[in-house]
């Protein structure tokens, strides 16, 4: 089971997820308790163009709604701040990972199973959209540390 998931992840990663200068890989939805109605999505987004790319909207046909958030640790308080725009720097990248930027997906229309593929639609300023497939993970990644993105 694990091997097939790993292969799927590899496949999704390589298929990329490349369009309009955006290359997205390792898009995952970490394993979570079945009772959770809010899921997080994490990925790496690269910008191969010479101009910053501004992602202004996120949605999924499998969820009621979605938002871009950033976890910030300020004065020892965790804050989850909704972002109106996600800027991917020219010839650079942005990582959506624990303790930093992430996507929040609200209310799955059907319960998610490990191995499911979730379609995410990113809208770039100017109106172009970009589809990403994120893989729902089975096991938690053994994250050995408590995240911190300090301000």
């Amino acid at each position: 089971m694990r091997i097939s998931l790993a292969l799927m992840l590899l496949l999704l990663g390589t298929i990329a997820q490349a369009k309009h200068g955006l290359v997205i890989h390792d898009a995952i939805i970490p394993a979570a308790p079945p009772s959770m109605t809010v899921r997080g999505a994490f990925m790496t987004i690269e910008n191969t163009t010479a101009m910053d790319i501004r992602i202004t909207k996120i949605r999924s046909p499998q969820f009621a709604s979605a938002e871009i958030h950033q976890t910030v640790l300020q004065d020892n308080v965790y804050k989850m701040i909704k972002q109106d725009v996600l800027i991917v720097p020219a010839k650079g990248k942005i990582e959506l990972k624990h303790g930093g930027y992430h996507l929040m997906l609200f209310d799955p229309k059907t319960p998610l199973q490990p191995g499911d593929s979730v379609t995410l639609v990113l809208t770039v300023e100017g109106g172009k959209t970009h589809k990403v497939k994120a893989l729902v993970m089975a096991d938690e990644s053994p994250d050995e540390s408590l995240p911190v993105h300090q301000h």
Partner: protein
Amino acid sequence: MWKTYLLLQGNAIPAPETIPDSGKLSGIIDRMQTPPEKKFNPLALIGVVVFTMGLGFAVMWLVSHYQHRPLTEADLPADLKQHYLIGTKPVIGIELSDNLGKPFTETRFKNHWTFLFFGFTNCPDVCPTTLLVMKQVWAKLAADAKAAPSPQMVFVSVDPDRDTQQKLNGYVTYYNPDFIGVRGPHNKLDILVNQVGALYGYEDGTNKNNYTVNHSAQILLIDPQGNMRAVFTPPLTVNDIVNTFQQIRKFHRG
């Protein structure tokens, strides 16, 4: 002569019929005039032994008293100083309930070390990560050869409106069936939150249904007497917490 002697001694001159015969009298005078023989006195030996024992106990008491004197910062090993809280600060007045619907009061802290941290189940980033870290902390401590009892892991919901008992139960037990979830109305929750120096709040301007809750990042350690004993703040690794906790447990007395 014996008459004079007896007078000098302050004795009444006995009536003639009570006067001892001269043989006995000379014996008495002889005993009075010769120095007493050097004799082994058991009382003296007992006295010496008792004194020495008394001295021994006094020394032991003093040493023990020194060892159990109130700790100051100077006593802490350097690497514990940033976490360990000196003194007693009991956590009290707690009237919450747990993920199984049972009451959760400060009596739950007695006779256990307790890790306590805050979050809410609609949190897809920080809270799952914290629970995963604590799950690994728990596993490492359980594997400890010295087999000391496992600490309690308590997740306190700062979102009682959405975190029902059932939801909270499904959430914490997903990570470990022994983990405890705690919830309660805001006024009761605030009693716990304020005492341990934490805070929480709702981010302004977000969707009414999809709001997030800002909350303190610290992980509290409560000792088996129910006192706040240590604070852990990120960044933290599983090994940071495991090693520091083991040191604190060894260092802690009382």
